[in-house]
């Protein structure tokens, strides 16, 4: 299991469309569970409903956790996606 903390740069936080980009990226890593942790709670990174439930605002920090096959690559891709603004 590997993890990294990242800061959300999207002006309006993780709303539906960037959350969908996040989930799409997570789902592309099929053998690896992806989750996010925020304020002591854990959310399924492969569910847009779960990701939205995290209520992530601009400037918030989230911990991305990758666990399973190709976890290093998965984490690297997830962090890159967040840092690139998730399509926005």
């Amino acid at each position, binding site marked *: 299991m590997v993890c990294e903390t990242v800061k959300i740069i999207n002006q309006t936080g993780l709303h539906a469309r960037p959350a969908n980009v996040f989930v799409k990226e997570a*789902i592309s890593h099929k053998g690896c569970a992806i989750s996010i942790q925020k304020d002591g709670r854990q959310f399924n990174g492969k569910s*847009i409903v779960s990701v939205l*439930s995290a209520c992530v605002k601009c400037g918030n920090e989230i911990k991305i956790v990758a666990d399973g096959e190709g976890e290093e690559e998965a984490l690297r891709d997830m962090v890159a996606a967040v840092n690139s603004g998730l399509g926005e």
Partner: protein
Amino acid sequence: MNEKVNELPGILILSHGPLCTAMIESAKMIVGETPNVTALPFRAEDDLEQYGLRANAIYSAMPEGSIVLYDLFSGTPFNQMMARCGGRPIDGLCGASLPVLLDALSMRECMSGDALVRALEESAHAGIVNVRTFMQDTLQV
């Protein structure tokens, strides 16, 4: 249509009136194109039997592992699907909503059939939020 799209489990949405069609339009605003997703609205003038037969025919033509989302348990679209399915197992969920559809659209890329429906049960619950409770717990209002 490419091979990957053909293998993607289909999603059939059945509803009273145009809710199913509108749900797909709303989902497209968030996720873009939605291949292998079909809406079949039940209209007041529709013949019950023909509606059920058509719904079953659409589902039968979908890839293995496809699912059906119904707007309302025990409503006419659900009842007609059940009445005309000939007793074969159909993976589906009553209580179709935008949160459920959004998760179905993404999760079907890594699961299908009963496993997908079970995951969507969680999505359905997670998508319902008591706003007063949320404000009290999160915003300290």
